[in-house]
């Protein structure tokens, strides 16, 4: 069995750690390139959302390298992500690509279904070993999130453009190489220090932007035109509403681990969106409110084109904007999105926020 999995941000490092601990052979899909996307677009339904297309590309490229099993997450609605694996199975089947799918999703009738699927993956490993492996992989996940958060925060302060990204890439590489929980911690601390000791402009008071929206387009930089990097370089401090460890804990582990969840965020969204709408619709609204309360200057909502939960959130966003006085820019991405066009929109938004902040400061001085 040679297991592969779809890319989503730093997910590859985490899954690799998990599979390595369990002694399962794996073939990570090649990094997402233009070819990945065009393979996906060629075979996936035209009006499906972007993550499905990228997943198909990942699977096909991994299959070329010899993978025969896919490990991926699923769901039970109402977002269409839950039905991805079925449609992907049909597509791969028609292409004559033989990939066995192991889908991690809530069981339909009985918990045994999930355990059986897990057994198919873990083989002769004991449950205890699986728990240990999950904990180890999750530690990596958290370390990566810490590094990513730090990078997004200080990128706007770097004096030498590209410094932060260079150190961040090294850090990811190093975390990938670690083999014990202790090493992970050391590695994280080492690189956090390294990042902070880069030549930085500590006097700068940048505008702060929160990014909310759909999980895949938030986490996978190649799907959102490297939005965080570009915003940082335009001089904005960036924070994201969801990080990988939170998603893994909430979606895959059902909140078993004591990590900050989004329960409170969803509660904040209640007055505007009182019902769960799948995906991260409620979180988008709630997180926007949180950012406004924390004094952020603006919020960007990202999602794949035709994403249903984000459309619901987008429809309600004007009310949040009005009540909390925070500008929100909604950006949908699909295979047609070009980085240059996106950059122009981000530039305009950042300019607008900077001017707004300057005006507020000036009028504050006069008053």
């Amino acid at each position, binding site marked *: 069995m040679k297991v592969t999995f779809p890319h989503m941000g730093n997910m590859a490092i985490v899954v690799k750690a998990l599979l390595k601990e369990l002694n399962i052979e794996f073939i990570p899909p090649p990094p997402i390139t233009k070819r990945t996307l065009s393979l996906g677009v060629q075979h996936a*339904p*035209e*009006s*499906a*959302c972007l993550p499905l297309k990228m997943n198909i590309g990942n699977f096909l490229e991994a299959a070329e390298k010899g993978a025969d099993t896919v490990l991926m997450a*699923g769901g*039970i*609605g*109402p*977002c*269409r992500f*839950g*039905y991805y*694996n*079925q*449609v992907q*199975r*049909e*597509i791969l089947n*028609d292409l004559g690509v033989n990939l066995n799918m192991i*889908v991690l999703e809530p069981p*339909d009738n009985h918990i045994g279904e999930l355990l059986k699927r897990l057994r198919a993956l873990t083989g002769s490993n004991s449950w205890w070993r699986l728990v240990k492996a999950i904990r180890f992989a999750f530690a990596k996940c958290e370390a990566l999130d810490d590094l990513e958060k730090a990078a997004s925060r200080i990128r706007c302060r770097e004096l030498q453009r590209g410094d932060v990204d260079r150190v961040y890439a090294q850090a990811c590489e190093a975390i990938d190489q670690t083999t014990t929980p202790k090493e992970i911690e050391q590695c994280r601390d080492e690189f956090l220090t390294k990042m902070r000791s880069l030549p930085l402009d500590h006097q700068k008071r940048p505008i702060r932007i929160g990014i909310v929206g759909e999980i895949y387009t938030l986490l996978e930089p190649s799907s959102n035109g490297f939005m965080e990097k570009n915003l940082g370089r335009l001089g904005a401090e960036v924070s994201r509403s969801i990080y990988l460890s939170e998603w893994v804990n909430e979606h895959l582990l059902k909140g078993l681990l004591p990590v900050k969840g989004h329960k409170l965020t969803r509660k904040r969204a*209640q*007055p*505007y*969106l*009182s*019902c*769960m*709408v*799948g*995906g991260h*619709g409620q979180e988008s609204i709630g997180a926007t409110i949180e950012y406004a309360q924390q004094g952020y200057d603006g919020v960007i909502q990202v999602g794949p*084109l*035709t*994403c*249903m*939960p984000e*459309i*619901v*959130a*987008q*429809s*309600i966003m*004007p*009310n949040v904007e*009005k*009540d*909390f006085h925070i500008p929100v820019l909604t950006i*949908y991405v699909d295979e047609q999105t070009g980085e240059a066009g996106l950059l122009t929109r981000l530039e305009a938004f950042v300019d607008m926020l900077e001017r707004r902040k300057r005006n507020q400061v000036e009028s504050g001085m006069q008053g």
Partner: protein
Amino acid sequence: MKITSVLTLSPTKVEAERPPIIGIPRALGYYEYLPLWRAFFECLGCSVVLSPVTNKAILDQGVRASVDEACLPVKLYYGHVKALSGKTDYVFVPRMISVQSKTYLCPKFLGLPDMLRGAAAFDSTYPQMLVANVNSRLSGGGWDKALMEAAEELGFSRLRIREAQKIAWKAQKDFEHRLIQGEYPPSALAIWEKSGRVLEPEGVLPRSTKRRESAPSGGPRIAVMGHSYQLFDSFTSMNLLARLKAKGVRVITPLATDDEKCRQATRFLPKRLFWSFGQKLLGSSLHLMNEPLDGLIYVAAFGCGPDSMIGEMVERHARRLDQVPYLLLTIDEHTGEAGVVTRIEAFLDLITRRKEGHLLSAKAQLG
């Protein structure tokens, strides 16, 4: 900061003298549940007002009020709700979360009342809305609870509500029975489009003895698949059904397949579909494909999540069977009538030629 919620209803005022006038928008759930709603409210003594048949003005209103990315049926819903302003005391906007156990509707149905209230916060001309949650996922949820909630909010007594529910269900069951019998859905719905049906001496039970519309016998048998709010709204479907009938086509719609047959037809799939309307579409498409059928037209709304997945599944299965020609019509507010007509004509030509071809090859084999 004070949070003004868009969900806080202003206190309801039931005038003792006059029962309230309830508006029902002619969109989305209307095409499946009108008899239930109408009979229920009329039995309570309310008068029921329907919004006008979809027209250009309603479309324009809807497009202006909603976000660009929403699908056409949702945009129309905005328009229909707005068209009722000034004519009613309340517009009945059920939040249809789930109408069958273990399923969902699309996220936009789930968020619809919130989306409308969001829009109403900026536009004071929106009518007052009567919202009730329909959630069959919860035990004791479903329509009964939703109607109970709605009517209690209007100030009716429980006993009276239960009585009305009984009659309303009779009406709905009668309607569904007619559909399964193969009655053309718009004509089955038509008797509920005028008021006072529940008062007629024969009540709501007797089946129509009226001669069923004589279906043309020799024409091709074509299944037209799509959400009922898409197919039966003759404005959005470009009058597709009537057009096909005029050309002598025997039209079959998904409503004519009962749930049990749908379940049987999708049993072989490894994953159950979690959208209830979607399950009906997929099930009845797969079911009909195994019957003698000359063609299958799938009418999808642009940006509809379930359609993008189900349309793909149906297409792939149709191609594998290689017996039924398949046409996918994707419709949004920019779709031109002429374009649709051309495609239908081409499709019908193809079917005719295919039939002739079969005849010829059969003759050649005989000769």
